């Protein structure tokens, strides 16, 4: 039941009778991040293997995408190498009807959800903004302005609930993003409305160059939950089954009307912020090395081996499949995307305004002129800004629209 449906229960009583409006204890995170690997918890072997395969694919996807930036096939790529357990976990805990709200770093989560990787990479390739259909895929557009997609997730989850649909929204944000006002407003709305939404903060230690301690003085980011009346959960973000378990529980709570959860996954961005970043400017190799030892794939493989669930054959198969995926992606991304300049004017509004029609006509004419020139170029060698006197000539027909008669002046 949302607070909207219980008028009357929400008044403060004067201090003599004051009591907390809900018990804070259960909202606070555990003292340590939740962990399953290396414990003797019972774990579903099938899930572990599924996670393993997805992590191996995910890592390879990250590597391939980064390679594509070097080949000029992507404008930029923010890698999630080292954070794959979070990306995969987020994708796997959702039902088909649920919605995912990724940030710019979360292409892997979208791919792991089953979206076409080439479509997912549109934004970073630069051929269009969102390359996939959000309603068909139930993945919101990759979001660049930090934390701004969080209120969208809340609104969507709230809307679904109002419509009686059994839909959960999972929204992803970085440690840096938690400092934005939109983070605050989204979490507050979610808690007040008891919206079925899960917030996954990937605390990877940095916002570009800025380390966590310049971002917050909180005991943990999960401690922010209590201020909204929302459980805060802390999980080892490199422990894939733990991430999966904590997120599953949160999704389940949301689905069953228990309201939102804030999950902080403690992880590390092993690569630079993007291919364009130089991480040596702000951190040393030692730190990276320490975290590489806590690599999500290594940790999971160690566990699988210890539990006799992974043999060389299985491992090789996962690697081979990942290579195939990478090769296919490479092949497709090496094709030039089809571009349609006139798309500039489509879908700005449902119906083009008169002004846009006019501007579109102008671009169309320019493109036609360019095409004509290109066709003629082979023979004439003209280049640059059109034919020499083209501008003067071209303008003739357009003049005179501004007055009744020259003589009238």
């Amino acid at each position: 039941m949302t607070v909207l449906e219980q008028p009357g229960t929400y008044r403060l009583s004067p201090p003599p009778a004051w009591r907390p409006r809900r018990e804070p204890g259960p909202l606070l995170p555990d003292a340590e991040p939740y962990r399953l690997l290396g414990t003797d918890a019972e774990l579903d072997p099938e899930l572990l293997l599924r996670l393993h395969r997805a992590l191996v694919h995910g890592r390879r996807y990250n590597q391939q995408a980064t390679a594509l930036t070097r080949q000029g096939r992507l404008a930029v790529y923010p890698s999630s190498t080292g954070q794959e357990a979070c990306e995969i976990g987020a994708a796997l805990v959702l039902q088909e009807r649920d919605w995912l709200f990724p940030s710019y770093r979360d292409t892997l989560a979208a791919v792991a959800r089953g979206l076409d990787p080439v479509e997912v990479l549109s934004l970073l390739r630069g051929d269009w903004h969102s390359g996939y259909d959000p309603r068909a895929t139930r993945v919101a557009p990759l979001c660049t302005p930090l934390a701004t997609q969080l209120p969208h997730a809340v609104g969507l989850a709230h809307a679904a609930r109002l419509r009686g649909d059994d839909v959960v929204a999972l929204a992803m944000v970085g440690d840096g993003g938690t400092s934005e006002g939109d983070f605050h407003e989204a979490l507050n709305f979610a808690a007040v409305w008891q919206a079925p939404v899960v917030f996954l903060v990937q605390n990877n230690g940095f916002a570009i160059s800025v380390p966590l301690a310049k971002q917050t003085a909180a005991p943990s980011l999960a401690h922010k939950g209590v201020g909204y009346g929302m459980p805060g959960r802390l999980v080892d973000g490199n422990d894939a089954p733990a991430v999966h378990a904590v997120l599953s529980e949160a999704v389940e709570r949301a689905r069953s009307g228990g309201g939102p959860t804030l999950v902080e996954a403690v992880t590390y961005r092993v690569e630079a912020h993007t291919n364009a970043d130089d991480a040596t400017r702000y951190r040393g190799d030692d730190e990276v090395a320490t975290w590489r030892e806590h690599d999500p794939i290594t940790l999971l493989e160690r566990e699988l081996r210890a539990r006799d669930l992974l043999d060389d054959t299985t491992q090789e198969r996962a690697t081979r499949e990942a290579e195939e995926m990478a090769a296919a992606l490479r092949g497709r991304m090496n094709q030039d995307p089809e571009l349609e300049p006139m798309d500039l004017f489509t879908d700005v509004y449902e119906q083009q305004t008169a002004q846009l029609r006019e501007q579109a006509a102008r671009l169309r004419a320019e493109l036609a002129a360019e095409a004509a020139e290109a066709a003629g170029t082979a023979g004439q060698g003209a280049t640059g800004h059109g034919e020499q006197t083209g501008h003067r000539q071209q303008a003739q027909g357009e003049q005179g629209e501004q007055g009744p008669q020259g003589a009238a002046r």
Partner: protein
Amino acid sequence: MSTTTADAGRTATAVPKPASMAQALNRALRDALAEDPAVHVLGEDVGTLGGVFRITDGLTAEFGETRCTDTPLAEAGILGTAVGMAMYGLRPVVEMQFDAFAYPSFEQLVSHVSRMRNRTRGGLPMPITVRVPYGGGIGGVEHHSDSSEAYYVATPGLHVVTPATVADAYGLLRAAIASDDPVIFMEPKRLYWGKDTWDPEAPAEVPGIGEAVVRRSGSSATLVTYGPSLPVCMAAAEAAREEGWDLEVVDLRSLVPFDEETVIASVRRTGRAVIVHEAAGFGGPGGEIAARVTERCFHYLEAPVLRVTGFDVPYPPPMLEKHHLPGVDRVLDAVARLQWESEWVEGGGR
């Protein structure tokens, strides 16, 4: 006012009678909520209180808290959640309490609301109406009287609509809510309580969003205006008769889409134009309109297009606002500067 907005709406009657813009807006929301279950009203104090201007009066009582919802006090959150609701197929109608209090939602508006359709190739249209009570003249203290339309007009992807009559308030708000595009619906605060003959039971059809209307025909010059400045221009046109000018008044009704044809036809006819708005002049919508009109009417013009606007200063305190707001005198002064004499004096520098 003894009749409350809600009462006025509920009283069935076939005879047109005086109604205020506030009542018409309330009625438009009520009708939209009744007709389309996807419509949801949200904002600060829109529920039990009915909004600080009572535009949402009675809606929660009639449609329940989930259709007309008091939100937490956070404008970016309100607009941001509205985006999510629209993604799921709802049609949110957001109330910003005052012009200046819409600014916290600016990023959501510019970075998402205005671009979502385009960036998703039509996949996620944004049928969101953002109601912004705007402008001065109501004695409001600091931050309660901004004319913020320039910001919205400069943002591709938004419609910017502003009614100046009771009938338009109803008709344009219905059209805004029905639009699959985001509409910034700017309500001139100082016209909220002005009454007009209007039958709430048979709201007359008005031209749609994007159509300007000639409110008064005239032959000497055209006044181009919108929202709170329409009554000023009508009064100026009336007063101008005494000075021998027969002014035409064009009410833009929407700044985006901009009805170039109506404006241009009028100015070509009259050969002179003054643009009147309350927003600051520098960088305000008037510059765009003047530039466009001049481009297409250059040889029809007997004088440059002039502008009468708020000064280029922060909105002043209430006791001084009368000096800031464009009034009848200032409009007539501008008309007088439209080079009526056939010979004109050679100009020096300023």
